[in-house]
């Protein structure tokens, strides 16, 4: 076995890396070498601990001691005190924020409890293609409990009491939705799982289906029992072939065990599930459009009411829930409404899965209790901003959501707080923006998506979004006026107020929130014709600083359009009317003589 008795784990996450973790590793190794301990103590660079605010982190194993904010010069103390003398270096321990006492055990540190996996409980743990592993992890136990010990009213009450709200974006009470579907009498009812995850940057549902498909199947059967349905449909986009494959395997295995099909667990209850494929239209995530798509019709939303609970798939009462919503149901049933509702905030219970993307170090999938702050998500779990840049904003809720700024970082994330701040929870995509991102271009980027994904049914979304996109383009090109900002706002407000479905009603959110939070940047574009982030090419000008230019001609030679003139050893000049702003000259210049104005 290992020749090492002790391991020193040094956080090598990108954020800590920039805080000199390489130097720490070096110094630790030097110290160990000097003390002749290289054979028994190993220094290892690890991935991010997710606690970058207190980084760099050094963890001593097997003592399970965590040192925070370690500096390269602390190496000596760690080796001499901890390794040799076996005494903890108290000054490097985290101080408990309440008791002010030093804590060394990470299990007692809050940040290790930042993430709580309910929905993702089996993801990355079990083999999704083996039903036995799911069953060994208490799988289908909730179904057994429901079918043998609970009435449908009791199940619905439990789900209602848990306070769970739909994770697809709108946040409607799951239990209430089930109750409505149950109340509508019909011989034929349907349970539909909405797996049409379409936001750019979102992959929560895909991960759940790929990692733990049975949790969704089990929940759908439970839902079927509660509302009186015996048919389940999973609407999944065809671009998710692996998720489809794993669902197929899961359904086959569940049928073989008799957990789907006739007379489930000998209780006389019948329920089966089939897959329906979507062609990949964002609007088909809207439940009425989704239902039309499943019926073979054009994927277009219709006015609600009637809600699917009254008249859904083939005009039968239909309950549509999102993947993540379903995946939490078995846990709610087994651990109880009380437990679930103890997690989260006032009106948003449980946990939420987020996909972190953009300019963040730990791009990934996380699950945190409702009420976690954006700061915790970005700077602790997410490992902070990439390349040491400055945080500028976070787009939550995908293209339907809003962009929140520095001042919103301490908002506890829940449905209502995000709406109050001018954004939405959405399905859980979080895109982090840094100082290099232009908030006009960014709004334009999100609008581009909605323009492409609009179904074209209602005029405000079909044409209005196109006009918003065009106007943002004008502003990016320096052709906007201060009056245009008023127009931009008016168009946005009217689109929100008049569009038919959720897609159109939320599509101006990026524009509105970015105008609210970064108004100066918009003004800079229209008034000064400047892009403060340096993103809008039309508003950039490459200029030679005569003080630094030595007339080496390197820039002129690299310019692809011959925009640079000047004699050898004389100051050069860039003709802005010819310049295409490719930036080649600036890259080539060794004298820092070219800058962007």
């Amino acid at each position: 076995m290992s020749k090492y008795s002790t391991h020193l784990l040094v956080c090598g996450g990108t954020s800590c890396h920039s805080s000199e973790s390489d130097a720490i590793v070096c110094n630790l190794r030097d110290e160990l070498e000097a003390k002749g301990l290289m054979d028994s103590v190993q220094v290892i660079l690890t991935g991010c601990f997710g606690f970058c605010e207190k980084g760099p982190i050094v963890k001593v194993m097997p003592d399970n001691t965590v040192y925070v904010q370690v500096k390269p010069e602390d190496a000596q103390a760690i080796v001499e005190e901890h390794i040799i003398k076996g005494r903890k270096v108290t000054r490097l321990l985290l101080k408990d924020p309440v008791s002010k006492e030093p804590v060394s055990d990470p299990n007692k540190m809050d940040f290790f409890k930042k993430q709580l996996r309910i929905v993702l409980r089996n993801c990355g743990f079990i083999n999704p293609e083996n039903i036995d592993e799911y069953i060994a992890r208490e799988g289908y136990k909730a179904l057994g409990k429901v079918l043998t010990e609970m009435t449908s009213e009791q199940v619905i009450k439990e789900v209602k009491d848990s306070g769970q709200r739909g994770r697809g974006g709108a946040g409607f009470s799951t239990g209430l939705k089930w109750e409505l579907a149950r109340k509508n009498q019909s011989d034929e009812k349907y349970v539909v799982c909405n797996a049409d995850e379409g936001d750019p940057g979102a992959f929560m549902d895909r991960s759940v289906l790929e990692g733990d498909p049975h949790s969704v199947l089990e929940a759908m059967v439970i839902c079927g029992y509660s509302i009186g349905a015996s048919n389940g449909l999973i609407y999944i986009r065809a671009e998710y072939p692996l998720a489809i494959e794993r669902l197929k395997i899961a359904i086959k295995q569940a049928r073989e065990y008799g957990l789907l099909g006739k007379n489930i667990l000998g209780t006389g209850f019948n329920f089966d599930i089939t897959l329906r494929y979507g062609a990949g239209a964002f609007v088909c995530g809207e439940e009425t459009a989704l239902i039309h798509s499943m019926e073979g019709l054009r994927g277009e939303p219709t006015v609600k009411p009637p809600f699917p609970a009254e008249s859904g798939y083939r005009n039968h009462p239909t309950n549509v829930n999102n993947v993540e919503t379903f995946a939490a149901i078995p846990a709610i049933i087994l651990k109880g409404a009380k437990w679930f509702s103890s997690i989260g905030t006032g009106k948003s219970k449980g946990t939420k899965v987020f996909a972190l993307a953009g300019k963040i170090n730990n791009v990934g999938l996380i699950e945190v209790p409702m009420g976690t702050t954006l700061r915790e998500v970005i700077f602790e779990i997410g490992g902070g901003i990439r390349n040491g840049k400055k945080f500028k904003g976070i787009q939550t809720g995908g293209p339907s959501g809003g962009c929140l700024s520095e001042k919103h970082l301490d908002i506890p994330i829940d449905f209502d707080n995000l709406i109050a701040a001018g954004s939405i929870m959405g399905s859980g995509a979080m895109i982090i923006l840094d100082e290099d991102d232009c908030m006009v271009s960014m709004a334009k980027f999100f609008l581009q998506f909605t323009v492409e994904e609009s179904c074209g049914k209602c005029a405000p979304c079909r044409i209005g979004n196109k006009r918003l996109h065009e106007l943002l383009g004008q502003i990016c090109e320096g052709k906007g006026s201060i009056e245009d900002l008023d127009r931009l706002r008016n168009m946005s407000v009217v689109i929100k107020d008049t569009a038919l479905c959720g897609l159109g009603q939320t599509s101006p959110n990026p524009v509105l929130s970015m105008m609210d939070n970064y108004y100066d940047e918009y003004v800079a574009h229209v008034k000064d014709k400047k892009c403060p982030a340096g993103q809008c090419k039309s508003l950039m000008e490459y200029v030679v600083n005569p003080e630094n230019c030595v007339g080496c001609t390197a820039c002129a030679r690299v310019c692809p359009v011959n925009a640079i003139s000047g004699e050898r050893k004389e100051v050069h000049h860039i003709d802005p009317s010819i310049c295409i702003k490719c930036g080649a000259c600036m890259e080539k210049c060794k004298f820092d003589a070219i800058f962007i104005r």
Partner: protein
Amino acid sequence: MSKINSIADLKKKRDELQGGLGSRVNDTSNAVHVKVAMATCGIASGAKNVMEFFSEQLERRNIAAVVTQTGCMGYCYAEPTIEVKLPGQDPVVFGFVDLKRADQIIEKYVKTGELVDGIIPVNYQTIDLNV
């Protein structure tokens, strides 16, 4: 597969599986367990090759091991990711596992218990449904 016909059947099945018969979930045997995160993102980063490598090489190097796939572990920035559990020890997650690092993991961590770079500290809690 035989049908599970009642709630008692289901419980029996679960007890069997949790006892380690036919499953590795709570296995107490002496095998090394390697789980490879094989969600779309992992596969796209090369997880299939990594999984094949572990299956082949552990057998070739005469190490009693079970290699399985699992879903997304959530560390997208560090794909491909794997989890290695040595008998009687806590599992360790490694990120950025290319074939070179996979080889290191077998040679150093699996064979000698010596850690290698790329460890991802697990920073979450998972609920236990066994209530």
